[in-house]
């Protein structure tokens, strides 16, 4: 019953509760290992790279042209259209690849929700390309789609074309390889995220007259969206840093001169590490913008348990 000391207790709210109300409780201790790990092994090297990007390498072309100010390397990057354009080249590859991989994996994963025979097999087959690695993919694309590869042979024998079509060493070759390596990745994630959505919700929607498309559009998709956002971010990032396949099946001086080729060129051909760092920082910044936009949008979505009662 009402204790006589009640007025006194009103203000006696434990610090713990106030912190907990702001989300700070012992759960945050779970972050400690990861934070320690990142600080110990990443932050220092990262800061080193960051400050390196502000210290143009003496004697490098950058210094000769733009002086040795802290932003000279950045200036050099943006002043040179051949370098600057690598951003667009990369975005032109990675955005479509990321979008395609996510968008294509959704309907396929959606088809795989229920239980049916052979589901496990199909899942495995669709995920297997993840094991190919860039090298096999690239070699395979070159061999399979090359001028005397099976694909061109088939097309010529069937009579669709009379000269071999060049599928590789251009934009499409790299996009293919990004899809071959990125799709299974996106599919695996999407499928797993999808499995966490309570099937009862779709049933409830069905009783309200929603057909499959509406159920997908209004129930499954919104609940899947937070996962899709992450999936997109990851495939996008993987595609954005594409390097080996851009060189092997692409056109590394022209249409697929992605930004990591520029970074590689600076770091390992010119051995201008500060320029390389600057380019890498620009890469990170561009990615961060895209990822930030996507995750910002994600934050506005419903994220939470998708189960009903019990």
């Amino acid at each position, binding site marked *: 019953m009402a204790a006589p000391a009640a007025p006194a207790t009103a203000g006696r709210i434990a610090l713990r509760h106030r912190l907990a109300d702001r989300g700070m409780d012992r759960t945050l201790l779970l972050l400690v290992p990861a934070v320690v790990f990142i600080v110990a092994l990443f932050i220092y090297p990262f800061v080193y790279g960051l400050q390196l990007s502000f210290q143009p390498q003496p004697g490098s072309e950058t210094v000769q042209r733009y002086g040795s100010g802290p932003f000279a390397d950045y200036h050099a990057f943006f002043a040179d259209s*051949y370098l600057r354009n690598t951003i667009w080249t990369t975005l032109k590859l990675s955005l479509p690849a990321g979008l395609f991989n996510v968008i294509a994996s959704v309907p396929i994963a959606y088809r795989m929700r229920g239980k049916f025979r052979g589901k496990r097999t199909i899942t495995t087959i669709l995920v297997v390309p993840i094991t190919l690695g860039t090298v096999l993919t690239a070699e395979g694309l*070159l061999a399979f789609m*090359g*001028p*005397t590869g099976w694909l061109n042979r088939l097309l010529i024998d069937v009579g669709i074309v009379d000269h*071999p079509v*060049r599928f590789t*060493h*251009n934009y499409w070759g790299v996009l293919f390889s990004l899809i071959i390596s990125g799709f299974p990745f996106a599919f695996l994630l999407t499928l797993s995220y999808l499995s966490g959505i309570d099937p009862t919700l779709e049933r409830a929607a069905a009783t309200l007259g929603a057909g499959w498309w509406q159920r997908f559009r209004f129930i499954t998709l919104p609940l899947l969206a937070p996962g899709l956002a992450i999936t997109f971010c990851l495939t996008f990032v993987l595609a954005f840093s594409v390097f080996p396949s851009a*060189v*092997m099946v*692409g*056109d*590394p*001086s*022209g*249409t697929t*001169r992605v930004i990591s080729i520029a970074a*590689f*060129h600076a*770091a*390992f*051909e*010119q*051995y201008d590490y500060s320029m390389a760092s600057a380019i890498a920082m620009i890469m990170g910044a561009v990615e961060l913008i895209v990822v930030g936009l996507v995750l910002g949008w994600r934050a506005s979505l419903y994220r939470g348990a998708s189960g009903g009662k019990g």
Partner: protein
Amino acid sequence: GGGAKDLTPGNVPDNPKNPVTLNIIDVAGNLQLTKGMIDEFVKTHPKVIKKVTYTNATAPELPGKIKAQQSAGQVQIGLVLTGTDALSAGIDQNLWVKTDDYASRLGNANYQAPAQKMQELAQGHGVEVVYYPSGPLIEYNPKTVSKPPATADELLAWAKAHPKKFQYARPANSGPGRTFLMGLPYILGDSNPKDPKAGWSKTWSYLQELTKYVDYYPSKTSETMSNLANGSADIIATTTGWDINPRALGQVPAGDKVAYLKGMHWVTDAQYAVVPRGVSADVLSADLQLIKWMLTPQQQAKAYDDGYFYPGPAVNGVTVQMAPQKSQQVIQQFGRPEYDQWIPKFPTETSLPAQQQVAAFDQWDRTVGSGKVKK
């Protein structure tokens, strides 16, 4: 490398105090030529080297790794076998031991004259172990090319007449590609073949004209070889080694032929043994003995190999007959007698120093490879 403590000739013993374990890293495919030499040394000198480990790696990333080890004072790589690329990167970044300080221990190598010039590229920070004149040469399919072009102009005309049938790989990724690029200024008579920026105007305009008839530039030499083999290309750029070895391996029909363009100078190539700064005195001591051993004619003869770096030996007085039996057989079967005439016939030039090479590649990427030229 701040953490690397420098050794002086004075504190490096003639023989290691204890037999060392030597970690050798090869970034040039050099072991194919020299592994036999090293293995024999280890077998015959158990007091110097107890064990070797071999690691293969790609050249670009190597300096970073060595730098990381040196900054930490933990140099674990005992010997590096490299081409000119990592050699010069290492020189710029002061990664290598100044082997010239130990010249007396290495003895007089008795390099062939052009090999001697290549040794100078090391600026005293490495020792050349194999050498070859390289190219540029063109390789063609005699079934489709009855008369190979003999001059640069003929090559251009041929390419124009046979669009997409001439091919060379992107110079930054390909030995024959870069040899073709570095050889053209001599063939075309450019003002300064050693200065790609200012002195290669003929070369650049020639390449820009040529690129109109080139379908695309593969990223690996082996792809040009496959294309030659499967008929999608009829003429490709090559070098002596890339001519002999792929035919021996069966990558290219054995019957394909080579030719040179008028005004040809050999743009020579070599590989080096270098020692990272920061190795222990014992390791350096072992390295020096090993390198000296590798430069003896008997060992050098192993460099004939399967024609991969034809001929291979960097020193004088090494004949094919001294090479291992298998080597002799391959060269007998796939080698070309005309090389014996061509090698002494044309002047030799060292390949561009690494920095100019990189500048040339960059220029090539921007003006030729980027596809800016309308086809």
